[in-house]
């Protein structure tokens, strides 16, 4: 090999290495946004990175592990989202504990009810301004800037999952803007999920030792939630409406 060819070969090699080094972070970021780990946990999303439709965030609530009287998930939600935590008929409750008793057998069940993050959300259909919307990853949200406070979404929601802000708010969290005259509901702690975190109710339930709520990607066959949904019989509330809920219940 003559010296010229050798230098040329070295040049191409170095150029390829530099190009690779420049492209790789982009590819890795892309994979970061798209990929979902085997644990089903969320991955951080880069600023400006669009939400991926390949992900469908969901929850599995195991009612056999949910303790009657326990309100850890509710309290955690209130703390995380700057909600007052009071329970007047005009107060916001993004997640609530519901106690059930089978009318025939008397069997008692306790479970949390929150926005079901439907694939076919009636609240999004009826919203006149499009303020109610569903992200590509299945999270249903309210755009605070275009909500006119007509409450039609509250009429349409089959799960009573939405609250109207009836008076001026105090103690707001910087991550969770709220405002008098707008409708709001569980955001699936989107501000945490987008940073790779988990909804606060899920963490609180685990911290209390119940592990009754599993959060993850329903579209990823290797995620814990997918495995659990495959293995056990789960229920969607008001399945007759075919809203295809992101929140599933086990043991109901």
């Amino acid at each position, binding site marked *: 090999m003559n010296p010229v060819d050798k230098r040329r070969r070295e040049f191409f090699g170095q150029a390829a290495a530099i190009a690779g080094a420049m492209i790789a972070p982009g590819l890795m970021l892309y994979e970061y946004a798209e990929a979902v780990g085997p644990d089903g946990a969320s991955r951080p999303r880069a600023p400006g990175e669009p939400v991926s439709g390949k992900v469908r965030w969901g929850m599995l609530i195991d009612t056999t592990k949910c303790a009657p009287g326990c309100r850890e998930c509710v309290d955690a939600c209130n703390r995380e989202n700057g909600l007052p935590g009071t329970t007047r008929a005009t107060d916001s409750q993004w997640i609530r504990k519901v106690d059930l008793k089978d009318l*025939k057998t008397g069997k008692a069940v306790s479970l949390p009810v929150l926005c079901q993050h439907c694939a076919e959300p009636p609240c999004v259909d*009826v919203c006149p301004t499009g303020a109610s919307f569903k992200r590509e990853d299945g999270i249903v949200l309210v755009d605070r800037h275009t909500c006119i406070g007509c409450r039609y979404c509250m*009429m349409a929601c089959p799960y009573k999952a939405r609250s109207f802000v009836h008076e001026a708010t105090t103690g707001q969290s910087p991550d969770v803007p709220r405002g008098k005259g707008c409708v709001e509901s569980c955001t699936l702690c989107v501000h945490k999920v987008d940073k790779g975190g988990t909804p606060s109710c899920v963490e609180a339930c685990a911290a209390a030792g119940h592990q009754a709520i599993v959060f993850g990607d329903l579209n990823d066959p290797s995620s814990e939630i997918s495995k659990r949904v495959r293995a056990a019989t789960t229920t969607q509330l008001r399945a007759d409406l075919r809203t295809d809920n992101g929140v599933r219940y086990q043991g109901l």
Partner: protein
Amino acid sequence: METKSARRAFWLLLAAGGAVLAVALGAAHYMEVHGHAVTGMNNQVVWGLPHVFAIFLIVAASGALNVASIGSVFGESDYKPHAPLSVLLTVALLAGGLMVLVLDLGRPERLVVAATHYNFRSIFAWNMILYNGLFAICALYLWALLERRLGRFARPVGLAAFAWRIILTTGTGSIFGFLVARQAYASGVIAPLFIALSLAWGLAVFHLAQCGLARLAGREPMDAELHARVRRLLAIFVIAALYFVAVHHLTNLYWAKQVAFERFILVSGAPYPALFWAGYVVLGSLVPLVLLFHPGLASARATAAASVLVALGALAFLYVFIVGGQAFPLEIFPGYEVASTFGDGRADGYSPSLPELLLGLGGLAASFLIALAGARALPILAPAEVAMAAPAPAK
């Protein structure tokens, strides 16, 4: 020539209507500043008394076009002289209803957002287009009716208005009919039910306005033959509405999953059964039918009394339909006894507050003012009545 007493009565009525409207605007401002916490509405009953008034006015607005439609579309020439008042009332009632609806929004100042952001899957968004379209069509219709040179356009514009109002009321009914999740609604029959209700309520309001304005001007309301026809028509509309209401409830009673709701609304869920049976069925429908059909009661006064009862029955019906429909808890867990801190499994109470009532009355006042001012500014009253009024002694 307008008499002095008629002029004084006009200004007095204008002042009275203006005062009610001013109080209503004050109430709306109070609700906006303090939030809906000062109303009786809550997270269970999200639409309250303001919506009862607003829906009444919007549905009646569509029905008030009856008289104009009968003249322009169905060619009944006896009705034609009354068409301008019919169209004016549609505009007035629609404006009053929309005012209440907008002022009850959580963020009424964002009306511009509603006008610039449309979700075309939403029947609410479609209704905004339909309401504004009706205003435009009514303006053209009124112009064609009042401007002799444009008379030839009255029929095609009248036809457009007729079609538009049928679609509009279908849209208003479908606001409820499309609510798949709620036991009280989610039915295709609600759209034709609302059309039947609009025919009755609109004609009742037309008759009252016609009588009132004629009296103010010192004229006879309408000739006896036409009055007899209006009476029969109002009775038929009241029966048609009752029929659709009966079909709606009977269908529900046939479905096991709806029986609990029907028991609540028709029997046990006070105050709704009383309002439904005594308010809507007896006072709002059966008594008016007696007044309208009884041969010994064939006076304008009896028809006016029937019209007032039909309108009051309408408010009772809507209170049961809108508020009662929400008060019944959503059935998320059928077969279970349900309890929570958010009113699950419990029929929640709703006590309308004074500001809500004032806002609703303000809608009526706004409609009243528009009709009153319009009837004075435009040659609205039928020429036939002018002729009839001629022999009457000037007051």
